């Protein structure tokens, strides 16, 4: 059955930042994936990082320590 579930969405100012996030997370085996920015939110670039809500604190801390740039953090209901 299709159902909507909350997901953590991290947005970026530039596409380069978003794709940099994908490369970093793949290399570090961090959770999440690149998706188009959901319609409900607006951001500088059209790609966003989607990850389980419960990974928020550890993920943000890790990418901050790594010096990655992101714009904003939202929780959005998406079809799971």
């Amino acid at each position: 059955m299709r159902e909507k579930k909350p997901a953590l969405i991290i947005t970026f100012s530039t596409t380069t930042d978003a794709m940099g996030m994908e490369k970093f997370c793949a290399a570090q085996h961090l959770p999440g994936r690149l998706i188009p920015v959901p319609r409900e939110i607006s951001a500088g670039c059209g790609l966003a990082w989607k990850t389980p809500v419960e990974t928020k604190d550890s993920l943000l801390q890790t990418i901050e320590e790594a010096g990655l740039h992101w714009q904003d953090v939202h929780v959005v209901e998406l079809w799971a």
Partner: protein
Amino acid sequence: MFKQVNAMGDACPTPVIKTKNAIKELNGPGTVETLVDNPISVQNLTRMAINHGYGVKSEKLGDNQFRVVMEIGDDSKAQEEGEVTCPVPGGSQNDTVVVISSETMGTGSDELGAALMKSYIFSLTQLETLPRTMLFYNGGAKLTVQGSAALEDLMSLEAQGVEILTCGTCLNHFGLTEQLGVGGVTNMYDIAERMGSAGRVVRP
């Protein structure tokens, strides 16, 4: 014999399944009356009845209350064949065929194009109305194999009833025949037939 089925509050395909079970219990000719709370269920039940050669009529009893009455005769067809489909928002399909002929979306940058194609396939999972079929050929065949970044989304789409088909010649060309991760393998005759019979063909 007469049986009544209460399918109020039930989402598709439950009303159809409950009704089919009641018809089985009749074990012969008779009447089955099903109460449902939405017009889509009325349509699903009516289509099922027509497919099986049952007499069928329906009426609106009130706001969000409908009655569908089926007359099962001696000569009605057996009930086993046919899947229950649910043309409702959230699980619906239409006659759109999506054709993926490349790993990338658009031209200019392959790195960006790969990210765009992944985004496109993810976006399909978020549509209210899903495509009927997705065809993958040439470079597109690299998206349906093990290790593809789009695999999870494609498996989700397949689980919702979207037919996923990849060109066998293309898998063979790339040496990926053994790595197919989702859907089935198809040939050019099927591809031509599915594209030709589609309501519309979408090629991102």
